[in-house]
């Protein structure tokens, strides 16, 4: 189980997306694909919001 917030995430809201990013950043050593798999398995969409935040910030690495 990968811990992540469970509320419905909003695309531009600071609540769920920010929390999702914080949790994801703390586990930055995990491969992105695997993290996606684990979070989606647990019913979260926060990896998607995290990726959009990276895209918006211009971080393409």
């Amino acid at each position, binding site marked *: 189980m990968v811990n992540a917030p469970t509320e*419905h995430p*909003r*695309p531009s809201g600071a609540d769920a997306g920010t929390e999702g990013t914080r949790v994801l950043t703390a586990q930055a050593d995990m491969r*992105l694909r695997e993290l996606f798999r684990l979070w989606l398995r647990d*019913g979260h969409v926060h990896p998607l*919001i995290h990726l959009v935040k*990276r*895209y918006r910030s211009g971080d393409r690495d």
Partner: protein
Amino acid sequence: MNLAINSDNVRARVRDLPALPKAVHEVILALDDEDLRLDALAHKIAIDPAMVTKILRAANSPFYGMSGRIGSVHDALRLIGLRTVSALFTTAAVMRSIAPPSCEGFDFQGFWEHSLGTAICSQELARLCGYPQTLAFTAGLVHDIGRLALAAYYPHELAGSIAFARERDCPQFEAEHSVLGIGHCEVGAWIAAHWHFSDKVIEAIRQHHDPSEAQCATPVALADIVHTADGIVHALDLVHVGGDLVPRLQLGAWERLNLAPESYLPLFERTEMNFLGLREALI
């Protein structure tokens, strides 16, 4: 207050919808023809002056950098490509199919912007996983058409469902089933069947919130593509709808797409760029 909708009544309404112009199906089919000539497609499109206007407006938009220099459908086809012109043509035709409804909480322009974004993202996903792109664009474009029909023919009931979703902080499709006893996925599938879209498109509409149930002989189902595109477009917030929710993405659909991690961000960029270009011409 009981806002439940009788499904037989909805089916009867759907049967009364006007047919899509024959030219739409001809253009969609024409794209699968490897011997297709530009002249032949331009001729099919030129039959409809309103379509010609939209296509020329798109071709002359700042997005393509040819402002005012494109004067014919043939030139537009050369500049922006068969696939994009077909996408414009299909979108414009489908947008004319149901008039803007007066339904509290329902945003007609936002609806079409989301549909266009999902169509573009579906096409991009299809390109990445080797799925037919025209089919994916069409399915993405009409994936929520049942919601437009509910807003047009049952505005009071759908407004109740929208209010329910807002109060409970739940996805719209869940609220529809709770309040109306029917959802936009089923209604949309009936409309797509009425309009003679392919079985794949019909199933993608019906299953776009639950692609795990999609019947598919290929590794990736069209429902997987539309389901994922819908989530991405909500997450990108292309439409800027207040209180919008990102629908839950199914693990199975994501895994079947099997996207390379390095493709994620370019996918967003292509979706957003193409959306901004086409939106200006169409909506």
